[in-house]
């Protein structure tokens, strides 16, 4: 159970880093998102946990650089940082630095690819790890990701990502036990390399 804990710990940190966007169908949403080569955003997060007086709040910044790098830096209520690059994850919390291998933990891998797949608009990657569903239109869309991996599914029920055009604006994560978190994303100025335009 404690070893699970290690994995879960990683998965968690990870997860909270998510951000992405979608449109009419998966291909179109990914086409929108693929325009983003890099970006920075502020986030605020609220987590609703049973048996804990809540919500638990956090805030910080997100940044992303195609093809495989992103960081989530939490400033409130405590300083923490998580950096993913390629197959390496570096966690910084409480003055400590830990490095780990992403694909050694499949759940972690799936969550990271959910984030990266969304950020880079990689439909193939998303489809490999999740059952996907797209609602709405290019102006405002919702992408729902349900884990294919049984082990991840015992922890994560689904991810709901909403976006405006090529901007990811919120990520909602439902855990298997009923706890959930909602992350609102506010892009900082140069969110994307190309100006967002309505999909054709």
């Amino acid at each position, binding site marked *: *159970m*404690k*070893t*699970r*804990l*290690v*994995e*879960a*710990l*990683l*998965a*968690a*940190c*990870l*997860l*909270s880093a998510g951000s992405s966007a979608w449109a009419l169908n998966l291909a179109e949403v990914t086409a929108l998102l693929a325009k983003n080569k890099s970006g920075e955003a502020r986030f605020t997060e609220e*987590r*609703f*946990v049973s*048996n*804990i*007086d*809540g919500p*638990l709040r*956090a805030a910080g910044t997100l940044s992303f650089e195609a093809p495989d790098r992103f960081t989530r830096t*939490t400033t409130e*209520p*405590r300083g*923490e940082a998580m950096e993913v*690059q*390629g*197959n*390496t994850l*570096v*966690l910084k919390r*409480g*003055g*400590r*630095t*830990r*490095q*780990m*291998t992403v*694909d*050694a*933990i*499949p*759940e972690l*891998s799936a*969550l990271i690819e959910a984030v990266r797949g969304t950020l880079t608009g990689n439909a193939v990657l998303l489809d490999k790890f999740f059952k996907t569903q797209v609602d709405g239109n290019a102006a405002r869309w919702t992408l729902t990701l349900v884990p294919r991996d049984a*082990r991840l599914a015992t*922890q*994560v029920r689904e991810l709901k990502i909403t976006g405006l055009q090529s901007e990811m604006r919120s990520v909602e*994560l439902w*855990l*298997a*036990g009923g*706890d*959930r*978190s909602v992350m609102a994303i506010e892009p900082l100025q140069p969110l994307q390399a190309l100006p967002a335009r309505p999909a054709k």
Partner: protein
Amino acid sequence: MSAQGVNRRLAWALLLWAAVVAACVAQILRTPFTADLSAFLPANPDAQQRVLIEQLESGLPARTLLVAIDGGTPAARAEASRALAGRLRAGGLFEQVQNGQTEGFEKVGSFLFDHRYALSPAVDAQRFTAAGLRDGMGETLSLLGTPAGAALKAIIERDPTGETARIAESLIPSSAPRSEEGVWASRDRSGVGGRALLLAIARAPGADLDAQLKAIAAVREGFAALKAEGLTLQVSGAPVFGVESRAQIEQEVEWLAKAGTLLMAALLLVAFASLPALAVSLLPVATGVLVGVAAVSLVFGGVHGMTLGFGTTLIGEAVDYAIYYLIQARAGGAALWLRTGWPTVRLGLLTSVCGFAALVFSGFPGLQQLGVFSLAGLLGAAAFTRGVMPLLMPDGARGQGLRRLLAQAAAAAVAWLPKLRVPVLILAVAAVALLLQRGQLWSAELSSLSPVRKDLLDLDASLRADLSAGDARTLAVVSGADLEATLRKAEAAAQQLDTLVDRGLIGGYDTVARWLPSQQTQAARRAALPAPDALRAALQDAAAGGPLPAARLAPFLADVEEARAAKPVTLAQLRQAGLSPLLDALLLQRKDGSWVALLPLQPAPGKAQAPDTAAVRQALALVDGAQVLEIGAELTRLYARYLSEAQTQAVLGALGVVVLVALALRSTCRVLAVCEPLALSVLLTMGTLAALNVQLGILHLVGLLLVVAVGSNYALFFDMLRHQGQTAAEVDADTLASLVLANLTTVLSFGLIAGSSIPALAAIGTVVAIGALLALLLSAAFARPRVGPPGAG
């Protein structure tokens, strides 16, 4: 001397010989024979090498098998991996079988949970003040509502400050194999299918090759029993190398001995056409081999298979003595030979002894054995030739065989060879140019000595890359007189390494102290746990107004109270919890009772290369006795040291040969005449190897030394002929034949070894076969005119 006197002396000589043989056989019968890699490890290691050797010889790697399952689908491979691991775990030969399955880790998990206040690095007095508790709880709460939170939430009432999470966090490996379908799998490799990976750690020590062989067989049989269609199994690791090398050495030694003996016998039959002569000429060889093996056994307490393999070369040298005697004694009988022939043979023997003596001072046990074996063997063979042969066959060999033809050919060759002087000198100049132009003439790779086949090494490297863990190339090493001292040093080293991790200079490190903190550290942590009332008060304060009310945390108070009275975590306890393989990888006890802790370092993110060792050394300079060990660099350094040692020894050996020759000949002119063809032979041999793009190593060097030692016999022979120029042409021809025959045996026996698949033997064989032939040809080519065209028919 009366016939009776001769007979009596023969009887005594034979009796003495029989006694020596019996003593040798008795010694050999109680000699252990080895065929492991120990011959390639240094005899007198320094502190860093010692750790390295301990690792290679008895460390966890020495009994760890790397297993790969290729082919099929990921699911099929995972299924096979689980089934195979299950079988091997049940089989009892293995201490642990790891394949990435996390089932069965609960025991370790609950052990860590139960001892969290002894093991968590966060535990100190500050941690249990109101501020410290608030901080710890804040960190735990920051994970709730994330996938990691579920596990934490389940224990939050007992562990609100997240000590278990802290321990878990510290134990996360910074590099680990990929997991696929719940088991370890290779990462994407272009053009190659996926594979499932397992690590099987045998119970038996790595040096017990029979047990390792059994373990390997168990893996193969276990896989065969699965009848997994479309899947293939590959096994690698140090035990496989050990077992394969032994089998290979045994096989080669047997083959070389048989082939060598047959070849010699055929040659001798051709030369003498006489079975008695054949039998008698093999006697010095047999005596030499027996004496040599017995001497090695006496000096080293055991004989390495490689030494026996080398024995076949001794056949080539020792049989020469018999050939010289049997042929040369025909002319004037034993008495004349003892006056004229023996001094030359003796000088040749002494020069060979000089060459082999250099090996005795080598740093490699393997080469030392070769040296002792050859010294004793040659002396034994020569003693037999000198002492017994003249009595056994007073008139030399009776048969004539094809020697007349050989002699004619040899005489013709000797007459013609001087024509080659100019071309040879031109070639020599070319060789010098080539050698100067070839910058990397000497290779400094220890692996060039290893008998392990290249494809096996490649497989091993690819499996290790796939596993990415457990094979750190850079280690921090601390040692102490007892376990506690060692653990304290490991903790001090870890403190320094943490700063490097924070600065991004290394990715991470492992240390046994995470599992087993020193008693001092554990006591300090225990002392930091406050009394119940104080803790309750601090907790009230810390939890006030937060999402986790103090009222819910009574189990936490109880657990801390229990931890204050708990016994410290011990090594035995950890072993009981099934952590032995992990402990053995990070902690070693030496034979003298002292301990060594290994802290493998992982490279910083994005840097696949070795960690920044300069920074590591600088940081660890503050820790008493801490060392940084770079395995690859260390092995190279080790080999480079031996190479330079061997170069000195070879030069000294060659000088010894020259001094001996000078002492015997007492004429600068003659000494130079003897040295000229030898120097040219060495030069041309090196040039040939360089032209063939062979990188020269220690064993090539040894081979060159032998070329000088053996080749000096030929050069001396021509020198002797020149000074006995008045000898009848007929005798000259027969003597020439004996020389050619002796050279043929040497070239053929070393040529056989050159074909060996054991690189060490092949290297020596190639050099000596080429060099000895060149030495004879050049000795003839550069012989002074006295030996002009003799009666060539």
